[in-house]
């Protein structure tokens, strides 16, 4: 019999029961909650007179709606009354059921996908779900993690299980040495460009190969985070020493004897040598350049050295029309140099790129420099209160502020603009977030997805520049 993939193992370990049509009941070890997708689930629970199955598996924090400016007044300081009600509703639901929540002024508050790993609430071998598609992030720890809808949030609260169907296995093997200035974000954007925004639909993607092994846990989280932008609900990286070192000593991580026992079990969280994947994609690390998206889907991406594509050269009519529509929305011309795109704002943050390593990379680029005078705003939003504290201990906040950037409180912020941080119509933004959909960062806003270093370099120049020119200079 063929060996098992990492995904197969995680699936088998959590199988409660299986039906003849392939649908199964899967046990959930960790349920993360935030304010946007949970209120209707709690309401459903109450209406049906049901109770949460296992309170201790739930962990909540408000992130989407919170302002990133002064919040010393707590939840009452959220200006938008509808946002305030949503955050208060999360507080009330967590209080009434006894669910652990890091509230708006808790030092541990932050973006739920930054908080989970930071607290050790995400552990190798777990099933992790959250009413948020970027739950794929947690797969960096060899955890089976994916986003769910609100009905499923209610289902997990009530039963500790999900009705699931097994996905297919895809291996994306990245081999070779990444070039100077090429980061995890560039790797995942390149992968999405290769397989397309629906290329991973129906699959759990395992990212493997020596390049992935060489990338830090923060970088692996960035890569798994964007598996969903390639259509895959699940992104995975096998356990190695980096995984274990990252988890050790974190507040929710196992201690003493249980730690030893857990580490022994986690060694098995790798795909077997003879495991069979339904699809394998080979990527050569040397083919990856710093990436910039030019369109309104993450697959509309190109190296910073490239030109904006010309729809006239496309034969597929659906693709051609999509490109024409995207260029119209983005206000770009075919064959325009990507480095000629002038920017209005820069956003460094989001569950993709707001961890300490991301902030270090950005700070290294802007240190001693000033953001371009043509820029309206350059925002730096740390992923959690603890990331913020660490960055300040390292003096990164001062570097950003001296460069003319704004140093903010943690949250999702301008990634999806549910709080006051947003783009104006027609504005171009270099953003370290994950989606460049129409209107995503604000009505009529134009998003270009890049790495933190590329965003920082663009902030200084006022337009995109090849980070490799800056680093080598």
């Amino acid at each position, binding site marked *: 019999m063929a060996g098992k993939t990492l995904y197969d193992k995680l699936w088998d370990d959590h199988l409660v029961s299986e039906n003849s049509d392939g649908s199964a009941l899967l046990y959930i070890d960790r349920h993360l909650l935030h304010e946007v997708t949970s209120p209707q689930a709690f309401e459903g629970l109450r209406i049906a007179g049901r109770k949460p199955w296992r309170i201790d598996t739930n962990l909540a924090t408000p992130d989407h709606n919170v302002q990133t400016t002064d919040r010393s007044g707590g939840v009452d300081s959220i200006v938008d009354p509808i946002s305030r009600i949503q955050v208060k509703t999360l507080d009330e639901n967590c209080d009434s059921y006894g669910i652990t929540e890091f509230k708006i002024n808790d030092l541990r508050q932050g973006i739920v996908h930054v908080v989970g790993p930071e607290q050790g609430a995400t552990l190798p*071998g777990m099933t992790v779900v959250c009413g948020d*598609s970027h*739950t794929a992030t947690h797969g960096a720890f060899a955890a089976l993690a994916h986003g769910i809808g609100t*009905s499923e949030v209610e*289902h997990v609260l009530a039963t500790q299980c999900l009705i699931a169907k097994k996905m297919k296995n895809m291996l994306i093997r990245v081999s070779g040495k990444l070039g100077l200035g090429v980061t995890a974000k560039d790797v995942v954007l390149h992968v999405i460009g290769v397989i397309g925004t629906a290329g991973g*639909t129906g699959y759990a993607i395992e990212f493997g190969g020596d390049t992935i092994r060489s990338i830090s846990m923060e970088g692996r989280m960035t890569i798994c985070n964007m598996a969903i932008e390639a259509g895959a609900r699940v992104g995975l990286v096998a356990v190695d020493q980096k995984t274990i070192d990252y988890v050790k000593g974190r507040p929710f991580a*196992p201690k003493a004897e249980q730690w030893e026992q857990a580490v022994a079990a986690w060694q098995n969280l790798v795909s077997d040598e003879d495991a069979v994947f339904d699809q394998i994609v080979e990527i050569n690390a040397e083919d990856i350049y710093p990436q910039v998206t030019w369109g309104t*889907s993450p697959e509309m991406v190109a190296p910073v050295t490239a030109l904006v594509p010309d729809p006239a050269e496309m034969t597929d009519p659906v693709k051609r029309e999509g490109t024409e529509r995207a260029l119209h929305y983005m206000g770009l011309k075919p064959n325009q140099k990507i480095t000629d795109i002038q920017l209005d704002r820069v956003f460094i943050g989001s569950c993709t790129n707001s961890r300490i390593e991301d902030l270090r990379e950005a700070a290294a680029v802007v240190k001693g420099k000033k953001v371009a005078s043509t820029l309206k705003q350059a925002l730096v939003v740390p992923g959690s209160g603890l990331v913020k504290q660490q960055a300040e201990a390292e003096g990164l906040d001062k570097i950003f502020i001296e460069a003319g950037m704004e140093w903010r409180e943690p949250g999702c912020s301008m990634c999806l603009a549910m709080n006051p941080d947003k783009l104006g119509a027609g504005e171009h933004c270099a953003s370290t977030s994950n*989606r460049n*959909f129409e209107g995503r960062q604000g009505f009529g806003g134009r998003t270009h997805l890049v790495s933190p270093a590329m965003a920082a370099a663009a902030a200084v120049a006022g337009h995109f520049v090849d980070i490799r020119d800056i680093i080598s200079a």
Partner: protein
Amino acid sequence: MKKFTLHEGLVAPLDRANVDTDMIIPKQFLKSIKRSGFGPNLFDELRYLDEGQPDQDCSQRPLNPDFVLNKPRYQGCSILLARKNFGCGSSREHAPWALEDFGIRAIIAPSYADIFFNNSFKNGLLPIILDEAVVDSLFQAVEANEGYQLTINLEKQVVIKPDGTELAFEIDAFRKHCLLNGLDDIGLTLEQADAIRNYEASRRQTAPWLFS
């Protein structure tokens, strides 16, 4: 959950690929703590010429006359014809809620994003997958014939064209059963409470750190 058995309705064509959930229901409407009332903001940025705000009276807003759902011939549509990878992006169940609240009961497309696909079934909204070539021919038929209607028979798993031609589609047995009977997943899962407890007892032995 609303049952889905047999449905006949007017078809509206949304001719673009990769329709994302931000397009279906923009973020400012996700601040609601309710499940209903999202219909007036379905496709808000495509449908209106101004920027929509939550709790706004949409009847006074300027409509985009070029947007397909604003065209007189598609008023009252209940079947949405779409292109590949419909519903990509976020996990927001507000997307199927908005479609359902607007009056859409079924979608026909060559493919869907996984989370959206899954969320639709939980809300009595049937996402039907047909071959790209078949979907193409339906786009042509809808555009050529004003008032074009389709009938969907879930029991038989067919879409029936006005001339009586049947287009077969696949659906998981369990999802079909739940839709036909309007069943609540949670109630069904709780019937397996003993199996869940047994799993927990055995997992507690092999991975005690998950229970401490």
